[in-house]
């Protein structure tokens, strides 16, 4: 009823040769939406067909518009046999459903085949006419905007933040259906891609409904995950932060946003999304499988009033990591919970209830931990899973915090900016501390108490005062476990988890002190489970917060102090540690004001041990939590083994890295940036399977990866790797069959973003100019051919050279517009003027000719490049020139070298945006106008 989707197939180019005899192709296109299919004419004998089709019109419910993708299939016509498929394009039309986002999708899309990869391109034009629908019982949630960005999008204002929304849908994995035995890999892959596309569409629609119910109109920090549970099903879950009543702002033209509100005040409500747990379902249709955990985190409100969030009793969760100034009052520390579940024990795998219950349990746990820290909210919240056969570890973590209640009620505050140290002050009661910690008076205001160390999962607040620079700190850990089944296995894992958490914490603490820092931001602890080992990887950005006391040194203590040699050894080691600390202070430029007055305000801290804060839930499964928000004051006792490990850290001059959005302590960014993905897989031999051996190997792998990255990017020095996101996985063993040798495989997947910054010295001037130049090329306005007439033209004496001069321009059409991608929520030196919609794509690639494609590396390299290409094409088609908050959520790789086969699944997401360079801004209105005109035009029609 309420929508008309129109699609037009314009042309194709670079098609593959499908007819060997003529070296040409007779291509035609099928356009499918829901159950309706249209076809174009066959364009005979061409690799660059011009179909120029009529408008294919689909009249559909907006519910379908949200769930279904537009499916375009390019085929080769064959008179005598079946038509051969060349490839497909799935277009998510969700961005068109928001009046404010994109107005049409138009451009070249790579034609993708799950077996052959990209095979040519197709030019498509898509539009949607929406009719207004005031039906209050509607099932669709058109108009709700989704953002992956975990901060308030820069050209919006959050009126109010409502809180957490979560949803989860379950379906049977096509790969595990009986029919998979008889269909081709291509059909199976396509079924899977389509299903996931449908499921995420449905998920988004349902979350949208919840948001509308809460009176919001947007979801920020939208985080969607897939759980491939194998036999028990395929789960798609998402969490986000709902934000209401943005309409005040959304009515104003985006242009005005762009131009006159450089100070982004937050007007949009943040949807906090929680990743819904995936529940395996067997044959369930997609309608039946939605879950509805009502956590009473956010009361379901009538549509009228902004929900009167009394923040204190409610424990809202926020998936955001970056907040408007003044939003955070105090930060307590990291809260996390994990739980081990058995997937084959789900009574009713088709239904999401069980998984909803699991996640609810975990969220309750987190809630209570936050409460214990005296906080009423959890920020920087995220959820994740790790699955190995039937065992599944569910994890959730966040940062306990006190929020400014005014934000929850009436939105934006115009207060004078809060004191820069406010968020460091303890939220809990000094005399009733949840755990032992050293408190001192704040080093800035000297009025409130602060802890000696602060761990958080959020980004460094903009107002925070930092001494020196920050750096990436990682703790890595491997634990072997016996191979086991079912309950025994789950128990073994549960028993190991607390020790792993403890050790990771200790490592982090040591490394932090070695670097003379006192706070961690963006902490992310990933525990992945394999058949005979557990891997833990914690990454965070360390900084020296000026408000916190200076960290104490590290003292080495031996176990047997009697031995003289041993004492000597300890002494040298102590010296090395001290030297390292001094060196690091220099390196990170940490020169805090000498803390002579320390004695004045604060009681001399007595030694305390950092303690693990753990709770065990009554259920057979174990939930545990580690509180990382505190550490002990001056001395640290280290075991010998770990000392060498943490001292020998690798430092490369000219490089800085962090896993937060911006590098603390560095402010002069250039706009040159480079996003990249790196994947590595290692095979372990059986001999190394001891805890120590594994730890060493794992540490080496991570260090080597970083080293490699530095080396590759050396041309960009001085350079900063921001938002470095490490992911590890231990794939199932059967996937690598190598006779009797038992193998394990570690996959380190970093999604890293690089930023150039210019420090004051003159030497860097070149760098700056270079990057600016790069950027100049990438402005969206580029209609001229990329290659300028070559200046290298040697002057020719003869007359005939005349005609040569201009011929070097690219002959066929305009070059491809540059699309930038970044995991950050912004692009340095630019302003985002418009959000065009969320990009959420899932691809499968399979090959049966692995060797011919250059082995596993060649295969994956090509696939990742293809994924990038498809993301860029979609963004460009929406009229955008960048993807922000880009992330590769999933990268599952499987191979069978004996059969010469490999398969890979990749899920990526991000926000498509239009940006303009800041320096251009005055000049840009004409540049932007075409986009704006078309957008307002479309607004009128909707």
């Amino acid at each position, binding site marked *: 009823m309420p929508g008309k989707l129109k699609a037009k197939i314009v042309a194709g180019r670079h098609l593959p040769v499908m007819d060997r005899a003529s070296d040409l192709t007779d291509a035609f296109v099928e356009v499918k939406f829901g159950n309706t299919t249209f076809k174009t004419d066959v364009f005979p004998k061409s690799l660059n067909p011009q179909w120029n089709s009529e408008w294919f019109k689909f009249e559909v419910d907006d519910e379908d518009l949200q769930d279904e993708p537009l499916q375009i299939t390019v085929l080769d016509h064959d008179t005598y046999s079946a038509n051969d498929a060349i490839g497909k394009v799935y277009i998510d039309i969700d961005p068109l459903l928001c009046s404010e986002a994109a107005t049409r999708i138009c451009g*070249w899309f*790579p034609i993708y085949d799950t077996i052959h990869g*990209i095979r040519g391109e197709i030019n498509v034009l898509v539009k949607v006419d929406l009719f207004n629908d005031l039906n209050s019982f509607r099932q669709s949630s058109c108009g709700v905007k989704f953002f992956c960005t975990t901060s308030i999008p820069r050209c919006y204002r959050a009126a109010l933040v409502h809180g957490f929304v979560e949803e989860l849908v379950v379906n049977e994995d096509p790969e595990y259906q009986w029919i998979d035995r008889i269909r081709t890999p291509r059909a199976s892959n396509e079924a899977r891609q389509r299903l996931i596309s449908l499921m995420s569409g449905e998920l988004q629609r349902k979350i949208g409904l919840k948001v509308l119910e809460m009176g919001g109109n947007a979801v920020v920090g939208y985080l969607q995950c897939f759980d491939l549970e194998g036999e028990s099903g395929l789960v798609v879950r998402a969490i986000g932060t709902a934000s209401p009543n943005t309409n005040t702002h959304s009515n104003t033209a985006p242009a005005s946003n762009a131009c006159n509100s450089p100070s982004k005040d937050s007007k949009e409500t943040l949807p906090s999304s929680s990743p819904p747990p995936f529940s395996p379902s067997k044959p369930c249709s997609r309608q039946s499988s939605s879950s509805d955990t009502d956590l009473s985190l956010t009361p379901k409100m009538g549509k009228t009033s902004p929900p009167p969030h009394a923040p204190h009793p409610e424990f809202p969760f926020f998936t955001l990591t970056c907040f408007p100034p003044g939003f955070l009052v105090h930060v307590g520390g990291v809260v996390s919970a994990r739980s081990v579940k058995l997937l084959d024990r789900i009574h009713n795998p088709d239904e999401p209830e069980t998984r909803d219950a699991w996640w609810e349990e975990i969220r309750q746990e987190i809630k209570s931990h936050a409460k214990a820290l005296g906080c009423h909210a959890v920020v920087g919240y995220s959820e994740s899973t790790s699955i190995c056969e039937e065992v599944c570890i569910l994890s959730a973590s966040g940062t306990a915090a006190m929020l400014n209640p005014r934000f929850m009620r009436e939105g934006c505050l115009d207060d004078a900016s809060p004191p820069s140290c406010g968020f460091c002050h303890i939220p809990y009661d000094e005399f009733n501390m949840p755990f032992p910690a050293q408190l001192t008076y704040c080093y800035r205001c000297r009025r409130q108490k602060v802890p000696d160390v602060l761990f958080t999962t959020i980004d460094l607040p903009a107002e925070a005062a930092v001494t020196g620079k920050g750096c990436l700190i990682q703790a890595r850990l491997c634990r072997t476990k016996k191979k086991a089944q079912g309950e025994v296995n789950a128990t073994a894992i549960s028993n190991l988890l607390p020790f792993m958490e403890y050790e990771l914490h200790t490592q982090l603490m040591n490394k932090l002190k070695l670097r003379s820092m006192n706070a961690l931001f963006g902490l992310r602890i990933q525990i992945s489970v394999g058949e005979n080992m557990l891997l833990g990887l914690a990454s965070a950005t360390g900084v020296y917060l000026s408000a916190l006391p200076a960290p104490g040194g590290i003292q080495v203590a031996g176990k047997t102090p009697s031995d003289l040699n041993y004492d000597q050894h300890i002494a040298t080691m102590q010296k090395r540690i001290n030297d390292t600390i001094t060196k690091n202070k220099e390196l990170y430029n940490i020169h805090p004001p000498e803390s002579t007055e320390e004695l004045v305000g604060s009681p001399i801290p007595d030694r305390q041990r950092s303690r693990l804060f753990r709770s065990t839930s009554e259920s057979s499964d174990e939930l545990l939590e580690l509180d990382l928000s505190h550490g002990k004051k001056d001395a640290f006792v280290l075991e010998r083994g770990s000392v060498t490990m943490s001292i020998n850290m*690798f430092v*490369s001059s000219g*490089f800085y890295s962090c896993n937060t959005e911006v590098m603390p302590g560095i402010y002069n960014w250039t706009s040159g940036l*480079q*996003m*990249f*993905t*790196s*994947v*590595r*897989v*290692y*095979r*372990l031999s059986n001999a190394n399977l001891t805890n120590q051996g594994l730890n060493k190997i794992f540490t080496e792998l991570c260090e*080597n990866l970083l*080293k*490699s*990255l530095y*080396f*590759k990017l*050396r041309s960009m020095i001085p350079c900063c790797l921001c938002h470095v996101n490490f992911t590890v996985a231990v794939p199932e063993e059967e996937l*690598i069959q190598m006779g009797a040798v038992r193998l394990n*495989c570690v996959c380190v997947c970093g999604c890293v973003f690089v930023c150039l910054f210019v420090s004051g010295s003159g030497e860097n001037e070149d760098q700056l100019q270079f990057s600016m130049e*790069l950027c100049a*090329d990438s402005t969206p306005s580029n209609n001229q051919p*990329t*290659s300028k007439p*070559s200046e*290298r*033209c*040697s002057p020719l004496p003869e007359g*005939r050279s005349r*005609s*040569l001069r201009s*011929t*070097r321009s*690219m002959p*066929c059409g*305009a070059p*491809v517009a*540059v*699309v*930038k991608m970044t995991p950050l929520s912004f692009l340095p030196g630019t302003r985002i003027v418009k959000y065009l919609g969320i990009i959420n794509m899932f691809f499968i690639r399979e090959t049966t000719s692995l060797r011919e494609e*250059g082995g*596993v*590396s*060649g295969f*994956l*390299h090509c696939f*990742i*490049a293809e994924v*990038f*290409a*498809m993301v*860029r*094409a979609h963004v460009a088609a929406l009229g955008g020139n960048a993807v922000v908050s880009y992330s590769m959520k999933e990268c599952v*790789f499987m191979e069978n070298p004996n059969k010469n086969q490999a398969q890979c699944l990749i899920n990526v997401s991000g926000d498509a945006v239009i940006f303009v360079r800041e320096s251009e801004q005055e000049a840009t209105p004409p540049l932007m106008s075409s986009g704006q005109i078309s957008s307002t035009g479309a607004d009128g029609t909707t």
Partner: protein
Amino acid sequence: MSMVLDVFVGNTTIMDMDIYQLWLDGLTVREAVKARMDQGALLECEANAEVLMSDTMDQFRTFQLCERLLHSPTKLANQLLFQIPSQHQRMLIEKYYEFDSVFAREVLGKKLSKGTKKDLDDISSKTGITLKSCRRQFDNFKRVFKVVEDLKGPLVENIQHHFLLTDTQARDYAAIVFFANSRFETGKRKLQYLSFQDFAYCASQLIQYWTTGAVGELHLYSMVEDMDVDLEKEFLHELKDLKVLVNDKNMLDQHKVLVCAALRGKIKVYRLMEANFKNLSRALINLASKLTHTKDVRDLFIDLVEKVIEPCRCDRWTLGEVTLFLTQYTNAAHGLGTFSRQVVWDRYMGVIRSCILRMYHE
């Protein structure tokens, strides 16, 4: 423990032009790593051999994936797979189509066929260029040849248009196509002393003045097929009329007198020139009159060397003397009252003169 998979992909494709050169040179990954170590790559960023290896492999893989696109450079600009800044695109293409003139010299004038391709290992061992690089260069020649073969319009421009090469490169490729098409003899021992650049220069002269496309503006727009690849038939026919210069005794004598008058006292080899004038003139004119036969066209360069260049060299003419002689020889013909083929004469002698001068190594 072994690394099974190691991949690095940037949104903007990162390409190191130094490694690209190593790849183009046909080195294996191992050799390239060694070469880079020798160049001191380990000193940067505290790299170790492993890092270098991984980086080199990645880069080689990227180039391999790009190679398909480089085969039709125009696609590089509008393909979607790799986001490559335009200045890098240009560099990639230029370097990919760069060739070793030693190699080109070997292949020059040969048929660009499978048979020749099989002989590449000989060329490879002779020139010291890796077989892989030889193959690339050969395939480039062949590809350009195939594309340009059936196209109308000026050769150099066609090459530039379809392969986005620089002017110099396009001109060189035009020479290669031109030689491969007419199959000029370049392999004889007596021609070994000539470099690729010498021949390329001659080719450009021939293309410029002797082909169908050379005649004038009018023809430029008529887009005759093969206009730059084949020599103009009519012109070659008209060359027969030049015979009068040697067959007519009077004219020959008069020609000699005029040239001698102009050169007397200006060149040291005057006497030898005077003695040899008739032979030289005969050689040059006979060459012209024979050019209607394909076989003789092929032998153009060997004939020039044997009949003109070698005799002069024997007599130790300097390049300056040859230049003076040829200039006067050409101009003097205008003074012959009975000689009516001035236009053809200039068109012929202009090219021959430039070729001889280029080929005359003292």
